[in-house]
């Protein structure tokens, strides 16, 4: 690849070539670097026994908060619930988002309008959307419960039953965030080069084969970007679950952020809350590292191909 910074400008202000990229990325970095200060403060909190309601008992206990998790069944439950939630939502959203993107792939006025219209759930703030879903799934007034009873599900309890609570919050998450994946993938699909597809069509290659062997591989970078952002957000889900069930029934939906939120804002157990969130941070960091490594590799490869 040609480095376009190479030719020296003949006139005007000269910036050393090596310095330029640093200068360009510096403002963004500086704007964000401030976050490191509260971040490390939070790391320090996670290494303390620190409850706001017992200030006299505050002291360093180093890894104790973390060690306690090992024998804490509610922590393992949180981990399990969070991963299940992230896996289910991202999985369903990817499949559905890809399907819709394929349906709308052809450029037409109708398809364009539908794709924008489908963004509306994404524009509804999750905190408010959940309030509405709660109403729609209310056993008496709720339209969805009414529909459910029409198709024979007389006593379907949505978020209030341990059996269907996860299903319900996943449904709301899918409703809100599938459009995000859909729009990324749709843009990706429409940008794919036409030649391979035309060639395949000429040769009469079966379409399923084209999809698996041409479309999907070429779409992978888009899939990775979309998945990356969704995984990060999904494993940190709070708004929807808290508004729908506050983590219940029982401990069915006590995902990381809900648990940490309750620990912080209600119990004011800052130490445990920070330790929980540090673990969540580590998981997110690890997952995105994997995604980005693959993303970079794929892009290198793709660039090599063309």
């Amino acid at each position, binding site marked *: 690849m040609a480095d376009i910074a190479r030719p020296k400008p003949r006139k005007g202000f000269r910036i050393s070539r090596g310095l330029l990229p640093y200068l360009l*990325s510096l403002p963004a970095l500086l704007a964000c670097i401030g976050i490191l200060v509260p971040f490390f403060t*939070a790391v320090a909190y996670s290494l303390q026994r620190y409850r706001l309601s017992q200030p006299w008992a505050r002291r360093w206990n180093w890894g104790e908060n973390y060690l306690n998790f090992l024998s804490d069944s509610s922590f393992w439950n949180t981990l399990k619930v969070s991963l299940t939630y992230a896996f289910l939502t991202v999985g369903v959203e990817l499949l559905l988002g890809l399907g819709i993107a394929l349906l709308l792939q052809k450029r037409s006025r109708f398809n364009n309008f539908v794709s*924008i219209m489908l963004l509306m759930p994404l*524009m509804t703030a999750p905190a408010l959307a959940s309030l509405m879903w709660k109403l729609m799934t209310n056993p008496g007034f709720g339209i969805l419960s009414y529909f459910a009873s029409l198709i024979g599900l007389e006593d379907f309890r949505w978020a209030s039953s341990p059996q269907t609570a996860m299903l319900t919050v996943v449904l709301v998450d899918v409703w809100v965030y599938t459009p995000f994946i859909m729009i990324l993938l749709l*843009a990706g699909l429409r*940008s794919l080069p036409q030649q391979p597809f035309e060639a395949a069509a000429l040769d009469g290659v079966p379409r399923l084969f084209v999809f698996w062997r041409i479309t999907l591989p070429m779409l992978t970078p888009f899939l990775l970007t979309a998945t990356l952002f969704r995984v990060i957000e999904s494993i940190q889900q709070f708004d929807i679950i808290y508004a729908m069930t506050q983590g219940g029934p029982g401990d069915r939906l006590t995902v990381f952020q809900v648990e940490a939120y309750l620990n912080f804002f209600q119990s004011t157990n800052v130490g445990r809350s920070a330790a929980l969130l540090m673990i969540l*941070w580590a998981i997110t960091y690890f997952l*995105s590292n994997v995604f980005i490594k693959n993303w970079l590799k794929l892009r290198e490869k793709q660039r090599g191909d063309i």
Partner: protein
Amino acid sequence: MRHTSTFERVLRGTAITLVILFFMFPIFWIFLMSFQTNETILRVPPSVVFQPTFSNYAALITGKLETAAGSLEINFMRNLWNSLFLSTASVAVGLLLGIPAAYAFGRLKFRGSEDIAFTLLSFRFAPPLLVLLPLTIYFQKLGLADTYFGLIWVYQLIVLPLILWIVRGYFEDIPADIEYAYRIAGHSWFATFRKVALPLAGPGIAAAGLLAFIFAWNNFIFALVLASADKQPVTVGALAFVTASGIQYGQVAAGIVLSILPTFALALYAQRYLVEGLSLGAVKG
């Protein structure tokens, strides 16, 4: 082009109808509710037959909310304005900071570029709650608490990584030869960036900006904790309809409709960019 059979057309039609039903029905229902009083919303079983009323919108716009427990003052329009201002300003700042950086990462490979890019993205990994308490304390000390400036700064955590990572892909995909040729012709680096790279990545920038706008718009916790009542966005403001005499569903619905409208209008306007623009390889095809 291949010939599509009738069977396939029917299948596609059915699928797209189902998709629209699933995603649009709740929106449609919210829209209907925004024209109803609480009494007609809370009927068993629910029904689409009702006498439409504009009282919800009237209440939101005039700021007077009539409930069983008397008249309440609400400031929804102020919340709406705050949302608009905070999101727009954050995205503008995010673009200003993010585009040069995205260009640097995408185009000018340099030592440590991937590490810095990853660091920038990793700011998004930090769960908001984690940094919230220390952040409030530091903001208090710095005098940034309860200022728009402070909020816009914090919002960069939401918008900047998104802009950076989407826009960067575009810059990478602009064929280097075009820029190279332009520079050979004797133009400065900055002129090349402005005249060639920026316009070519335009759709991507618009799309990333719009998505960032949506995410900033939907944010809830930062403004709640860091600002006083007069700087709260709609996401917090709409909760004011959860009153002592019950949840005013009609008003929440009207609030949602009003809060979707600006973003939706923006998305319709930027339609072309949004759908075409997110394609990382827009100019390759």
